[in-house]
């Protein structure tokens, strides 16, 4: 399966290079103010290249989640612009927005699996909305579960799985459509160190296959172990951006 993904990701990677030129995500002077409060994100400008693994770190309330949510338009900036490739996200039509979301995999601290669907159905749902046929779905779901090491949990319900297993299912759902970008918002927040380590290893593997990974976390051990680009936020502003950074606050 990994070989298979590698082969297909190589093809996608080539396409991506053409599509995104140099950057896949670009925040241009972005500010977000909720209600009349203080800015959650203030004058943020930075870009992410295709294939990068970017960790965004900071205390709770530093603005990490707000920044991530702007990417799939769950939150819209008060001022400034967010680009996905060359497209301005806030100017996308409803249909374009749905297409964008299918092209971004998302994982969260609380897993957000659909409790009334089996593992198979949870992952199949992402493929169905992308318009895949039943045959493709029947072939892809077991493969992606194999990749996250849960091939035997196909017919389990989320409530029958441990936290670590649920998060791996969430990752499987996020990557099954081979998205250009994977957003992970505190994916290890509810996991013990062993499971957290496993999840990070999977994220690194996905990144090695060519998918851009954008990780928000405040777990120092994880950030230090990844040893990739680290963007540090404090009170809504970017205070540090290092190519091979560490968790410093």
């Amino acid at each position, binding site marked *: 399966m990994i070989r298979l993904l590698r082969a297909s990701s190589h093809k996608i990677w080539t396409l991506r290079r053409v599509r995104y030129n140099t950057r896949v995500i670009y925040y241009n002077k972005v500010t977000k103010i909720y209600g009349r409060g203080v800015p959650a994100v203030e004058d943020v400008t930075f870009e992410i290249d295709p294939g990068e693994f970017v960790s965004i770190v900071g205390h709770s309330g530093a603005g990490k989640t707000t920044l991530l949510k702007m990417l799939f338009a769950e939150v819209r900036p008060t001022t400034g612009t967010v680009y996905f490739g060359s497209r301005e996200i806030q100017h996308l039509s*409803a*249909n374009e927005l*749905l297409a964008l*979301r299918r092209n971004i995999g998302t994982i969260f601290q609380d897993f957000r*699996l659909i*409790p*009334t669907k089996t593992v198979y159905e949870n992952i199949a*749902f992402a493929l169905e*909305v992308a318009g895949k046929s039943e045959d493709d779905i029947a072939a892809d779901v077991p493969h992606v579960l194999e990749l996250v090491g849960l091939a035997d949990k196909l017919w389990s319900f989320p409530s029958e799985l441990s936290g670590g297993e649920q998060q791996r299912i969430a990752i499987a759902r996020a990557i099954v459509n081979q998205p250009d970008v994977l957003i992970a918002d505190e994916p290890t927040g509810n996991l013990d160190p062993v499971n957290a380590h496993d999840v990070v290893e999977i994220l690194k593997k996905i990144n090695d296959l060519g998918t851009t990974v954008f990780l928000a976390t405040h777990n120092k051990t994880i950030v230090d172990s990844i040893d990739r680009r680290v963007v540090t936020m404090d009170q809504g502003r970017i205070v540090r951006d290092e190519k091979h950074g560490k968790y410093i606050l």
Partner: protein
Amino acid sequence: MSLWVNTKRVARYGLISFVRNGFVSLTAVLIMTITLFTVAFLIISGAALNDTLKQLTDKVDVTLYFTVEVGQDQIVSMQKALEALPEVAVVTYVSREDALAIFRERHKGDQLTLQAIEELGGNPLGASLEIRAKQTSQYESIAKFLEAKQEDEGAAASIDKVNFSQNKATIDRLTNIIETSKRIGMAVAFILGFATILIAFNTIRLAIYTSRDEIGVMNIVGAGHWYVRGPFMVAGILYGVVSGLIVLLLLYPITLWLGPGSERFFGSFNVFDYFVETFPVLFLIIIGSGVCMGALSSYLAVRRYLRT
């Protein structure tokens, strides 16, 4: 992807959600059963009320009695004049012979009265026209027409009496009762119907509230609005269909049991006969209301959690 594939998937997920969310489905079905039962009760009681009021209305008429000398042609021309009035529903001609036969029948146990009639020799009863209005409130204007005729010299000699003034108080009272009953019936139906629909709507809303996170996930994964909404609407339709079938099944033994009692109480209205005769219409109304209510409630409830 074809519309057919999407429809199949939506229907499958709706059915799965209905089965797997067993307790939520059970609650929704129970509440909707009560709602649809109320709808059925309103339909049947409305029909019983209408039937009873119609029976009462049919008992009211104005009778125009002619003198014995009047010829049939004069009566027929009066009948035609009355039938031409827009308020008049039916005018029944009772000839002198018919009047005598009715009189004899009515007094068949009363030998003294019958003997008195025999001693008179001929037929002392005049012909009459029984006039029935379309609505009880219209007797007043028919009576006015007849009064005008009485004042007219030609016709006055032929008219013996009009029984309207004697019946006026009863007719007015009956008209009031009928109008008030209809108004109260409609108000009760409206309030009861509105309240139960609101309860059913809120139950479905609560059922979908428990799935709000699920809807959020579907949004983020990039599912279109109809793809998210569809399974919930299918589940809502299933609540309606199952509840409707339960109501129709329950109505059979209930109306069968109430049938004879209802006939005694309402005069001639038998709820079981009504249920059997109008079953196709009742089926469509009950199942249709359930389906519409389920689908619409789900549509509106999911809309709240859809994000673009």
